[in-house]
């Protein structure tokens, strides 16, 4: 049986992916799980593995092509088999076999995604009419229906969003594709622009800041760092300690580990901590899954691995999907404090400043202590000031007294 290779959708908002490289040539034999192609997606360059054993055939996308998600770009066939004839039709993007997209869409990567790619999804008559009336290009609309159908509310959401942004997104992108803007932006940069705009204009942000005495954090690093370095070969960083502290605090505050869905609040069963990492053309958020159940050593090893692969542009789909909360640390840039933009549909993001000596009052006397500022940006549809403050309280308590993290 021939398996179709489709441009994978690795993020909900992804519309197209750029084919960076084929790892196999047409006619070459490939095993299931072997790297087949490299795709530049929303956030990173990712390797896509072959969904089956067989021979690469019917390749219809070239390196450098930008391809709508869900479109068939090649087939894995058995010896003597030809790629199916209907592959031409699939390429038009009108219909898509959900099964064909499944292997590439990396199912375990994003269990909470409500629907698959919708560039090829069905459209309700009402949605089609509304799109026409508002001049929205349906190829750019993500369907929220049970099977990814584009529904009226998806169009209305775009219309409403455009009312506040001064342009219809779908229409704007069509124009953009013909103009110059896309030429100058990489996918990562363009998506960063879109996602932050979407977050900032739709999620009502508010900010709560706490300063924490990092003396104990430094001590913990000195105390446990050498053992971890000896056993696992990685240096324990402040970020690692923070990931552990945040994961434990999230466990106690499920609302902070929640997602805003159109219809309400979804409490995420897993605590997957995303860590924002700077790369050449923007920011990538790599994910430490189930961080609340990992030891400090495990976190340190995983974060270091992710950071190295992020820098090399070699993150895999699973590495960047499924975060339920994000930490953004600009401490290494000597930033005292800052506010971060929430990564939708997460409810909050923690902005971490540098640890620096400051004069603070200790027992009524001025004292010099290594201090750090923590600023939580929260989505007010999910959280309120008191909840955010209680979360920060627990987080700061575990930084000041980090014993609990280390068991």
């Amino acid at each position, binding site marked *: 049986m021939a398996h179709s290779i489709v441009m994978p959708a690795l993020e909900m908002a992804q519309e197209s992916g750029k084919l960076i490289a084929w790892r196999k040539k047409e006619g070459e034999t490939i095993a299931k799980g072997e790297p087949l192609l490299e795709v530049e997606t929303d956030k990173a360059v990712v390797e896509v593995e072959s969904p089956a054993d067989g021979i690469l055939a019917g390749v219809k996308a070239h390196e450098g092509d930008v391809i709508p998600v869900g479109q068939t770009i090649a087939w894995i066939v058995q010896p003597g088999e030809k790629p199916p004839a209907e592959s031409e039709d699939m390429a038009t993007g009108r219909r898509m076999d959900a099964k064909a997209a499944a292997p590439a869409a990396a199912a375990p990567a994003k269990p909470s995604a409500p629907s698959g790619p919708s560039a090829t999804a069905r459209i*309700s008559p*009402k949605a089609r009419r509304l799109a026409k009336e508002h001049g929205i290009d349906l190829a750019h609309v993500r369907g929220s*229906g*049970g099977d990814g159908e584009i529904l*009226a509310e998806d169009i209305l959401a775009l219309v409403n969003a455009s009312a506040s942004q001064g342009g219809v997104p779908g229409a704007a992108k069509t124009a953009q594709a013909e103009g110059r803007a896309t030429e100058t932006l990489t996918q990562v940069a363009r998506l960063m622009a879109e996602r932050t705009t979407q977050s900032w204009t739709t999620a009502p942000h508010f900010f709560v800041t706490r300063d924490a005495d990092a003396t104990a954090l430094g001590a913990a690093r000195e105390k446990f760092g050498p053992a971890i370095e000896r056993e696992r070969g990685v240096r324990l960083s402040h970020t690692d300690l923070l990931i552990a502290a945040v994961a434990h605090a999230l466990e106690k505050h499920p609302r902070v580990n929640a997602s805003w869905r159109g*219809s309400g609040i979804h409490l995420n069963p897993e605590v997957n901590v995303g860590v924002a990492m700077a790369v050449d053309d923007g920011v990538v958020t790599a994910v430490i899954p189930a961080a609340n159940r990992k030891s400090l050593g495990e976190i340190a090893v995983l974060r270091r691995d992710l950071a190295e692969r992020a820098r090399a542009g070699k993150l895999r789909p699973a590495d960047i999907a499924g975060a339920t909360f994000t930490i953004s640390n600009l401490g290494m840039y000597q930033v005292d404090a800052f506010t971060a933009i929430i990564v939708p549909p997460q409810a909050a993001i923690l902005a971490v400043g540098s640890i620096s000596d400051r004069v603070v009052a200790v027992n009524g006397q001025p004292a010099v202590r290594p201090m750090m500022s923590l600023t939580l940006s929260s989505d007010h549809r999910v959280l309120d000031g008191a909840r955010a403050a209680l979360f920060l309280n627990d987080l700061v308590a575990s930084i000041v007294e980090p014993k609990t993290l280390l068991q």
Partner: protein
Amino acid sequence: MPEVAVRELTMAEAVREALAEEMRRDPRVFIMGEDVAEAGTPFKVLSGMVEEFGKSRVIDTPISEPGFTGIAVGAAMTGMRPVVDIMFGDFLTLVMDQMVNQAAKVHYMSGGAWKVPMVLRTTLGGGRRSAAQHSQSLHAWMSHVPGLKVVLPSTPYDAKGLMKTAIRDDNPVVFFEDKMMFKVKGPVPVEDYAIPFGVADVKREGEDITIVATSSMVPVALGAAKMLEEIGISAEVVDPRTTWPLDEKTLIESAKKTSRAIVVDEGYERYGVTAEIASVIATGAFYDLDAPVKRIGAMHVPVPFSPPLEDATIPTEQLLFETAKKMCKR
């Protein structure tokens, strides 16, 4: 409904009151059927009628549906206004020629010279453990034939008002009563009123989904709407009240408003009333629909005698709730 008359009648009492009032008003109106006189029908709808109007106007017949229905057609053509009682809707099969080829066609084929102002009262609905030959809802058959009007009341108020219109109508009217709803009570005004045919009634207003329900399915739809309300879905329940004439406008307007519609009817789903109504909505509201119109009817099997099996073949509140919930993406 006028507020002065706060009084509750059962469905059976409402039908009886309509018949009695019309019989007092118009001496041409008479009742004919099996067990209609002393017995007052097995469902006691006509209790007391023979006492008031006598055996010449409340006529017990032998078990002979084709015969007495044929008599009624002739009586109607020659100036009377008969009300025929067919005990179980299943027995409509026996009077198809009288109704379909005679009553429905005479006015047309005589160039308007003859009219057939008769009412055929009968029952529909399962749930009474009456097995496959006494549980069917065959109103789709009658709705299919040009020349017949078909009435499906779901409340005592509707039953009385529609029965009056049926008796006063100069065309043959088939009037279906749900045999499980005869004891259901509801407010009925004391004063005279009639409900015109072809006017649907919005039994409950809503925003998110339209449930079109007929007869026995109206209370089911209202129950499902209540369940839906608890999960934040606002369902509108529309009762067409007559399948012919059909108030297409109200059905389409409701579906346009909510963007989604389910049609539920106790007749067999295949080729049923739900198909016709769904088609009307799909055509009229196409550009305002956000989901395909769904139909729910009785399962395509003879209605079983076994209670658990019978219950499985008839649409339930739970099924309607689940279907609506899915359509609203909850």
